[in-house]
């Protein structure tokens, strides 16, 4: 999941997920590049307001709240066989977002 961070938080080993461009649009680093210590240093000297790195997304609510909301949304159809399957898949998907 892409997350925007300020340049001061960059560390070697992070992967860039969106191209880093200068103010004039020139691409400095393309998506998919893993940062080396030299790159981090050079980027921090440039006038750029931040970049997107690959990071697990921070969730705005807790797992319990997310599952509670899921139950709530499915309440009128909770006993329908197809919806039971769909809900189980969603539950796994939501729980997966909080792993690690």
């Amino acid at each position, binding site marked *: 999941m892409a997350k925007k961070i300020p340049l001061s938080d960059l560390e070697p080993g992070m992967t860039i997920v969106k191209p880093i461009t200068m103010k004039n649009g020139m691409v400095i680093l393309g998506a998919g590049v893993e940062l080396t210590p030299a790159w981090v240093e050079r980027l921090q000297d440039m006038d750029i307001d931040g970049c997107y790195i690959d990071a697990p997304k921070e969730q705005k609510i807790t797992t319990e709240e997310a599952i509670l909301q899921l139950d709530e949304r*499915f309440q009128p159809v909770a006993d329908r066989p197809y*919806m039971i399957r*769909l809900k189980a898949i969603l539950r796994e998907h939501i729980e997966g977002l909080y792993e690690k």
Partner: protein
Amino acid sequence: MKSDTIINVRRTRIENIISLPTVPGNLKRISNIIEKPGLTLDEIGCFVASDPALASKVLKMVNSAMYGFPGRITAVSYAVMLLGLNVVKGLLLGIAVFDIMEQTMRGLWAHSVGCAVAARCIAEKKGGKDPEEFSIAGLLHDIGKAILVLEYQKEYEKAMEGAAEAKIPIFEAEKKVFSDGHAEVAMWLAEKWRFPRNLVEVIAYHHRPSLSQIAPLETAIIHVADIIVRARGIGFAGDFYVPDLNTQAFDLLSLSDVDIKEILQKIDEATDEIYDSTE
């Protein structure tokens, strides 16, 4: 008979809605060009290119996760050629509708984008040709809600309250207030905008996919995409509960658990992008 008359009156009113002062200028200009009989790709390309603000919005949309082309498209002429007439028409309407959706029902845009991404993803899995057309169908399937709120705000609020109280989907609550609903309204507009018959059916029957005659697969895809996005709880589409799946439509697509998880992931990514860009 009486309800037929009411519906006809409403149809005329909706079809003429574009000339109303409440409708943002963008939609008026876009609707005018789209209605033109025999519109060519060149004409629509020139129209977009002549308006820098519009052109930059088109490029932003084309390069967003909704379409997912590899690489970056930077020229309007190329985008238009790549997407084809119907997709460009839909894209322009999508841009125009964004303004109305933001103004009438917060969350409807996120719902529509989620649906566009989900529909495209399902279409690709099913090997459909022109997956971009599904993005358009997903993006526009709820346009009727925005138009109804714009034109019948009090009545629509009543329908939304009714849906919340009775825990029924909004399209059922609409029937109690309007006798027709957002799908019909969107169908009238899609016909007025000269969209192809299959796209009109998809929009008209996305809640009742078994009624579709010429595009049952396409309609099933939008129906299922709509429900998956609601199940994920993204955006707001007028009600708080997930409507029931049409089991025939769902079986027709035979999606595996893994397929559905992949769709969910794509929806999450695309809608995160919206929230990021509005921050």
